[in-house]
């Protein structure tokens, strides 16, 4: 009974929920919370990117472009035009989805390195526009973003709130919010993967020609997953803008795009929990390496190279493979 439950697709979600519930016991100060909240926001973004990269087998080196568009849409709508957050996030997601669909149709015909080039170009163009349209975006200096308001209830990182009689701080409230959002992101992704759409996507990854021969409209499904992953990025970008309270075009930069795709590959393409682990590791690494000061960049590059050379399948799939091999050996020995 328990075994069958563990095999189900909810297993990953349960493990994640458990971690998110236990984690606050280890978070000592607001700085820890901030780090974990940023991690969760970015993790949800890469869960969306993983649908495109890990399941449909398409590369995107420009995903921060959509993240940045979402962040700036929210920032401008709430800050300059006084919208409240929820409509800003929703309309932003729709707008970014449409943009992704328009550019995705022609781009996704490309393959391999040409696709990586084209997505890289889209990301760069978005970043350059955000940098140069100073009147709207504040240019390279960035722009302030008001606190998140949920149906008239303002959620500021500096606020004090009470939940079921418990006093919680602003960062703790944010922690609860992003935890729920991350779980929703994972839940949606897992359901999508198990749906007919997910099967169609995996067939595209396996062999695009074979998929189209058996009647899968490969162009349609590729565009669809591209749009979905862009919407993930847009919503998370909007939340990120609210949480940080200040955004610069760096959120749409090439470096950020590379960070996203690296999280996917490092954690384990096609593994939802894996890419979350990738996000956690790559977000923690600079904190750990900060002690090395001058050596920080060198160490980062070295670790990146070594992990990818020796664990080309990514952290989580490699670890699971080793663990299950050990278990099987043990089980075999006992029998």
């Amino acid at each position, binding site marked *: 009974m328990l075994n069958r439950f563990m095999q189900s697709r909810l297993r990953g979600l349960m493990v994640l929920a458990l971690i998110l519930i236990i984690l606050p016991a280890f978070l000592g100060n607001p700085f820890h919370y901030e780090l974990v909240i940023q991690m969760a926001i970015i993790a949800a973004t890469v869960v969306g990117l993983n649908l495109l990269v890990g399941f449909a087998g398409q590369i995107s080196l420009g995903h921060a472009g959509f993240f940045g568009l979402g962040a700036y849409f929210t920032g401008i709508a709430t800050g300059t035009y006084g919208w409240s957050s929820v409509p800003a996030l929703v309309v932003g997601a729709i707008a970014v989805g449409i943009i992704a669909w328009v550019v995705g149709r*022609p781009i996704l015909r490309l393959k391999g*390195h040409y696709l990586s080039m*084209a997505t890289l170009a889209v990301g760069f163009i978005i970043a*350059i526009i955000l940098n140069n349209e100073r009147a709207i975006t504040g240019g390279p200096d960035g722009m302030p973003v008001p606190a998140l308001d949920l149906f008239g209830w303002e959620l500021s990182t500096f606020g004090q709130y009470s939940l079921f009689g418990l006093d919680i701080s602003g960062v703790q409230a944010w922690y609860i919010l992003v935890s729920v959002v991350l779980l929703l992101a994972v839940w949606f992704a897992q359901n999508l993967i198990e749906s007919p759409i997910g099967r169609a996507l995996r067939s595209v990854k396996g062999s695009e020609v074979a998929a189209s021969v058996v009647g899968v409209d490969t162009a349609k499904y590729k565009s669809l997953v591209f749009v979905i992953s862009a919407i993930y990025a847009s919503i998370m970008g909007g939340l990120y803008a609210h949480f940080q309270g200040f955004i610069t075009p760096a959120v749409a930069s*090439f470096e950020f795009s590379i960070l996203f*795709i690296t999280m996917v590959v490092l954690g384990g393409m096609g593994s939802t929990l894996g890419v979350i682990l990738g996000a956690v590791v790559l977000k923690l690494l600079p904190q750990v390496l900060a002690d090395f000061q001058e*050596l920080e960049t060198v160490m980062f*590059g070295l670790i990146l*190279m070594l992990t*990818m050379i020796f664990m080309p399948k990514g952290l989580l799939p490699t670890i699971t493979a080793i663990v299950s091999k050990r278990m099987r050996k043990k089980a075999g020995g006992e029998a």
Partner: protein
Amino acid sequence: MLAEFLQYLFTGITIGATYALIALGFTLIYNASHVINFAQGEFLMIGGMATVSLTAMGVPMVFAVVLAVILAGVLGIALQRFAIAPAKQADVVTLIIITIGASIFIRGIAQMVWGKQYHVMQNFSTNEPIQVFGAVLNSQSLWVLGVGAVMVVALVLFFTKTLIGKAILATSMNKEAARLVGIRTQMVLMLAFMVSALLGSVAGIVVAPITFTSYDIGIILGLKGFVAAAIGGLGSGVGAVVGGLTLGIVEAMTAGYISSDYKDAVAFSMILLVLFFMPRGLFGAKVVERV
């Protein structure tokens, strides 16, 4: 009017020649191993920075250049031997991340050794600009064009006249068959990375007096080179040269006549346009996918 146009054209051709050399480096490695080397720009940086610091230590210019080029070549071999070769059967994305890791690593070392500030290199010959129909031509531009042309001719001769060059071509066409006729393909791959690094570092050295140099110039120059290679069609030598020059000229014209703020957007809009209509670039080979 004419002077203005000529001015932009000179600027465009000069920077375009640099892009062409970087694109050739990409092409070479792509042909030999089907890897897109995101660390290509770092070879330029190493070339320029090493030359600047060696001359500052009192090494004569010629020796400084030779040493810098050798350093880059060794780096190219090391990159293939220690980062690419061990990853053998990895995915396209995984290989991209490995080369990105390598470029961060190299940049990190450069930052430790040379610091974060900009470095200035003297023109090779006179600082006196040359007047052509009212336009001003930096004498260093002639060096860039001349050296670029020599490199292209040398590459053509290398691939058509020498045994080693032909071995690289053979490996790029069919690795298994090349091994069967006795070509040591691992050596050939290292060689391809080395030649690519040499090309990059030479480009980095000749262009340094114009653009200045710092530890992080490799990122954007490398990407522009990748754009140039993709415009021309990955794997095509002619394409790399045409792509590089076209990109340089269009960029300079946009900066001059339209807006210098959007100069960097030109490269990326251009590559999208080209790929929309020609998914394999201008000179890319038609590939039939085998199922």
